[in-house]
C-alpha cells in the first residue's frame, strides 16, 4: 500500500515538472509550427543557472525566477537572431534548434563539469510529511502545487487576455490571425520567451528532485515529445493531461519493471498515434 501511495505522489511531482517543460514546447509548436528541440537543453540550462544563482541568492524560488528570466532572454535571442532568418523553412528551424541544443549542452559541460550537482530543497520543505506510517517529501507536493497554479495561470492567460486570444487565433489559423492584424512577429518572440522561461524555471524547480547533470536534456526531451504527441499540439489541456499520464506510466514503469520503463512509455504512444493521430486533445494533426 505504502508503495502505491508514495509512487503515485512521485508521479504527480514528475507530472508537474513535465508539464512545465511540455506546455511551452506544445505552445511553441502550435503557434510557430516548429518543434523546438532546444527545449530539453533549456530545461538543463535553467537547472545549471539555478545552481550558480543559488550561490548568491539563497532562495530556490528566487533562483527559479532568475533562471527563468535568463533562459527566456536566451530563448528570445535565439528566436530573433536565428529562427527569424529561417522564417517559412520549418525544417531548417527545427534542425537549427537541434544544433543549438548540442551547443548548449556542451557549454553546460564546460562551465559546470561532468558531475551531477544536487540542488537543495528550501529548508522549510526538507522535512517529510508523515501521515500514519507513510513519509513523503513535502517538496514534491509543492512542485505539484506549482504546476497546477501555472496551469491555471496559463489557462487564464489563454482564455481571458488579449495576448491569449491572439495566441489561440494563431494556433487555429495563422493566415486568418495575420489578416485580422495580430502582430505575429512579436507574438512569436513572446511565446518563445514564455516557453523558454517555463522550461528554465522548471529546470531549477526540478533540481531538488533530479539534480543538474549532463544528459538531463536528453532525458527530458523525449518525455516532452511523447507528452505532446499524446496530448496534441498547441493544447494546454493536452499538455496537462499528457504530462501526468506519462509521469504515472514512467514512474510506475521504472519502479515495477525498471529495465523496460522506456518500452512501456512507447505503448500509449502507439495506441494514440494509431487511433487518434492528432493526440488526445489536439485540433490539428502533428
Amino acid at each position, binding site marked *: 500500500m505504502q508503495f502505491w501511495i508514495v509512487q503515485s505522489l512521485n508521479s504527480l511531482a514528475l507530472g508537474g515538472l513535465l508539464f512545465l517543460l511540455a506546455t511551452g514546447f506544445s505552445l511553441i509548436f502550435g503557434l510557430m509550427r516548429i518543434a523546438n528541440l532546444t527545449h530539453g537543453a533549456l530545461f538543463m540550462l535553467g537547472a545549471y543557472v539555478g545552481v550558480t544563482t543559488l550561490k548568491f541568492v539563497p532562495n530556490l524560488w528566487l533562483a527559479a525566477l532568475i533562471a527563468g528570466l535568463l533562459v527566456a532572454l536566451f530563448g528570445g535571442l535565439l528566436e530573433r537572431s536565428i529562427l527569424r532568418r529561417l522564417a517559412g523553412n520549418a525544417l531548417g528551424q527545427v*534542425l537549427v534548434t537541434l544544433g*543549438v541544443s548540442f551547443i548548449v*549542452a556542451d557549454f553546460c559541460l564546460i562551465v559546470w563539469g561532468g558531475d551531477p550537482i544536487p540542488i537543495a530543497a528550501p529548508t522549510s520543505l526538507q522535512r517529510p510529511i508523515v501521515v500514519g506510517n507513510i513519509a513523503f517529501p513535502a517538496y514534491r507536493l509543492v512542485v505539484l502545487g506549482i504546476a497546477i497554479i501555472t496551469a491555471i495561470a496559463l489557462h487564464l492567460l489563454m482564455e481571458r487576455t488579449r495576448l491569449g486570444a491572439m495566441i489561440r487565433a494563431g494556433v487555429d489559423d495563422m493566415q486568418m490571425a495575420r489578416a485580422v492584424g495580430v502582430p505575429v512577429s512579436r507574438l512569436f518572440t513572446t511565446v518563445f520567451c514564455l516557453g523558454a522561461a517555463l522550461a528554465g524555471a522548471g529546470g531549477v524547480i526540478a533540481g531538488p528532485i533530479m539534480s543538474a547533470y549532463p544528459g538531463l536534456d536528453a532525458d527530458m526531451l*523525449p518525455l516532452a515529445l511523447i507528452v505532446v504527441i499524446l496530448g496534441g499540439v498547441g493544447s494546454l489541456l493536452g499538455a496537462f493531461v499528457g504530462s501526468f499520464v506519462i509521469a504515472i506510466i514512467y514512474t510506475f514503469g521504472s519502479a515495477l519493471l525498471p529495465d523496460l*520503463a*522506456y518500452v512501456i*512509455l512507447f505503448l500509449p504512444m502507439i495506441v494514440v498515434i494509431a487511433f487518434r493521430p492528432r493526440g488526445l486533445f489536439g485540433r490539428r494533426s*502533428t
Partner: protein
Amino acid sequence: MSAAARIVLVLVLVAFPLIGGDFYINLASQIFIAALFATSLNLLVGYGGLVSLGHAAWIGLAAYTSAWLYLHLGLRHWITAPLALVNTTLIAGLFGWIALRATGLGFLMITLALSQVLWGTAYRWAAVTNGDNGLSGLTRPAPFGISLDGPAAFYYFSLTVTIVAVWMMARLVNSPFGAALRGSRDESRRMSALGHNVWLVRWLTFVYSGFWGAVAGLLFVYYHKYIHPTALSLTSSAEVLLGVIAGGAGTIAGPIVGAAIVLILKNYVSAYLDRWNMLLGAVFVVIVIFMPDGIVPGIRRWSARLRKT
C-alpha cells in the same frame, strides 16, 4: 561522373591500403560505414522528403541483436547476421507504420521519440544490453575463411558491402519506384489521384532504408567489436542527418561526401579538442543557414557557372 573518373576512383580505393597507414585504412573503413548509413537515410530524407531524426535506431538495433545472439546464445556470425537484419527490418516495419501516420514535423518528432525509447532501453535493460558498460568481447566474422581482423581485410570487406549497398539504393532511386517516391515527396495528393499508393511507397522506402541501416549497423559492430548505448543516441541520429544535409540530400554523392566530412571532423576534433558536440551543433546551424542545399549541389552549381563563362 565520367567513366574515366570512375575508373580512377576505383583504382584509388583498391590501391589505398597498399599506400596508407593503418590509422588511415581504419578511418577509411569507418567512412565507408558512415557513407552507407547516410545513403540509407538519404532515401527517406532526400528522395522521400521524410526527415527522420531516429535513424540511429537501425545501427543500434542491428548491432545489439548481433552482439547479443553471439554472446548469449553463442551463435555464429553466419546465423547472427541474417537474424539481426530480419529483426531490425521487422522493427523498421513497425516503426514506419507508426511514424508514417504523420508526415513533415510530426514524422520527425515520432521517429525521434521512438529512437529515444530504444536509446533509454539500451541504457536500462542491463540484462540484455549490459547497460552503460556496453557489450564487448565480440569478434569479426571470417567470410569464406578469410579473417577480417587486419585493417586492410576489413577495409576491402566494408568497401565491397558499401559499394553493393549504394549501388542497390541508386538503382531504386532511378527506378519507376524511385520516380513514384520522388513524386510522393513533391505532390503527394496528385500522386494518389494518379493511382499511386503514396503511403505504401513511403512505408516500403522506410523499411528498405531501415534494412540498409541495419547492414551499416552490422559493419559498425564488426568494426568496433563493441556496442554502447551512445550508438542509439540523438547525437548519432543527428550526425548522420547532418552528413546527408551537409553533403546534399537527394543526390547519390552528397551524403557520401557529407558523411565523410562529418566523420573526419569528429575524429580530429575528438582527438585534439574533445568538443565534438559543440562543433556538431555549430556546423548544423551554419549549414542550415548558409548552405541549405548541401555541398555537392553547391559545387555542381558553381562548376556549371564556371563552364558557362
